[in-house]
């Protein structure tokens, strides 16, 4: 396997590691670690494979395409139920900055009765989130609203056109939505609602995972990977938006520096400085998944989360 370590070799050959991801701002720590050469320091040669969707990226990992996968935790839970065992080895954020935007005339969740909303792909994290928001707002999501399914990129068009009445929104796209005069039914940074929906402010949903088998067989590689990631996270949380944007540029072909700065400024509050998943956060995530039907049975922290690598990584300089 490409993950074979070549310890002891004089020329310090790098271990090749492939990371599959659905490229987003959430995983900045890893990109920084890559850009700053932290992986190389650890003896890893990291390559990124970008998928159109998290769950597919995750399947790619299980099919042997990659060693690590960066995505939201829900598919990992779901797959666990299906018999695909994975270990979550680090988290990259502390909370979820998901938002929910209504069209001009929608100011209350309750107004969405009988309307069409977009909540991302069914079964995805945003979907569960919106589902809960709607329940919170006193609606029965299964009956009171129609979930339209579309490409994320089409959502803002659909909202403006009136094809849908409310849409899931990534926090970093907030300004685009306000440009079309959308109302923020749930603002990404609004912790109050979030606490009600998730049961906790902590919600370390953007994670790095690997298959259980890989973690069991290659603890050193995992450790090295996590070491670099944690170092990246530290750098990330201790530098200015401009500096971060500068470093991230190569990972976001097609975005200008201004775009990046804007997005970073919007979501940096959620960046995790230590990459840990708290017991409280896990509880919230598991409960939330159970509530929204992603999970059928409790999984249990230890069965799916392995924080030992992150713990060890904290001291690495």
């Amino acid at each position, binding site marked *: 396997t490409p993950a074979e370590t070549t310890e002891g070799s004089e020329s310090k050959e790098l271990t090749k590691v492939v990371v599959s991801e659905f490229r987003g701002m959430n995983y900045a720590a890893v990109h920084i670690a890559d850009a700053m050469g932290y992986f190389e320091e650890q003896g890893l040669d990291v390559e990124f494979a970008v998928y159109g969707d998290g769950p597919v990226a995750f399947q790619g990992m299980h099919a042997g395409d990659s060693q690590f996968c960066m995505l939201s935790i829900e598919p990992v839970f779901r797959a666990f139920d299906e018999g695909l065992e994975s270990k979550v080895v680090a988290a990259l954020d502390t909370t979820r900055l998901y938002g929910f935007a209504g069209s001009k005339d929608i100011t209350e969740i309750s107004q969405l009765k009988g309307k069409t909303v977009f909540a991302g*792909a069914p*079964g995805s994290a945003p979907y569960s989130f919106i589902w809960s928001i709607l329940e919170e707002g006193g609606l029965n999501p299964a009956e009171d609203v129609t979930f339209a*399914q579309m*490409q994320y990129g089409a959502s803002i068009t659909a909202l403006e056109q009136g*094809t849908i009445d409310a849409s899931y929104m990534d926090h970093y796209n907030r300004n685009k939505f306000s440009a079309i005069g959308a109302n923020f039914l749930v603002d990404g940074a609004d912790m109050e609602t979030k606490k009600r929906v998730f049961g906790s402010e902590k919600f370390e949903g953007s994670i790095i995972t690997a298959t259980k088998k890989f973690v069991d067989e290659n603890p050193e590689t995992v450790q090295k990977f996590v070491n670099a990631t944690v170092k990246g996270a530290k750098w990330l949380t201790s530098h200015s938006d401009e500096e971060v944007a500068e470093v991230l540029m190569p990972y976001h072909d097609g975005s200008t520096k201004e775009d990046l700065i804007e997005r970073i400024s919007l979501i940096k509050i959620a960046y995790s400085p230590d990459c840990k998943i708290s017991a409280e956060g896990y509880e919230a995530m598991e409960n939330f998944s159970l509530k929204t039907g992603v999970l059928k049975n409790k999984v249990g922290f230890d069965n799916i989360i392995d924080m030992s690598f992150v713990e060890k990584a904290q001291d690495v300089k």
Partner: protein
Amino acid sequence: MRSIDKEKKRYFSVVAIRSVFIIAGIFLWEYSASSGSYNPIFTSYPSQILKDLIVFFTSGELYKHASITLTEVFWGLFFGSAIGILLAIVFGYFSFIGEIITPIISAISCIPQLALAPVYVLWFGLGLTSKIFLAGLMVFFNVFSATYGAIKSMDKGILESANLLGASHFQTLRTVVIPSCMPWILSGLRGGVSAALVGAIIGEYIGSKGGFGWMITYSTSYFNISRVMSCIVILLFVGLGLNKILDIMEQKLLVWRTVTSLRMENLKNQD
């Protein structure tokens, strides 16, 4: 009589061998999945798909999604082929216009429609229209190019004959051009059937509230591969069914045609 019997025999052995192939494939799939040579979660396997199909059917969901997708496919096929044939004919008459516009059509057909999701939503919303448009567009590319090509390669002589015998433009079209281009139109339609199905599904990916495309995305994100496969199996059957209709049309419409085989021994036996 004799030769009809031969025909029938041949047909049955073709169908029989084909069935054997398919069944063998299914068994191999089932076996390799159940023997654990790979994790069946990625591809599911026949018995599981069958179970899921039954659930899909009995729950009434199949009907709901099928009716959505099939409506899109039907109208897509209809508009796509009608406009495709029509435009091919128009360009056949006004070849100057044809030369101007066909490269534009070729170029447009190179755009991955999925990328235009926002544009489609902008233009057509999330209803049937966008899916029909997309399916129709993809059918159009197929049928148009097949028909236009056939017209450009037509035998001039029979057009001239028809004209001399007093046929108007429209009559020539109906009685000579369309019948003699029929093999190509039908082959375009065969491509069109696939295109309509794929187009409708992609349309549903772009944005929809139901249909097999919706179901596939939904199931994919829940790792419910059996359901994805169920949808694919149904699409396969729809495709087969539509192709069968085309086969029948071919048999009815192309009685005049003799099919060429490249092998001398086969050629010989074709009377």
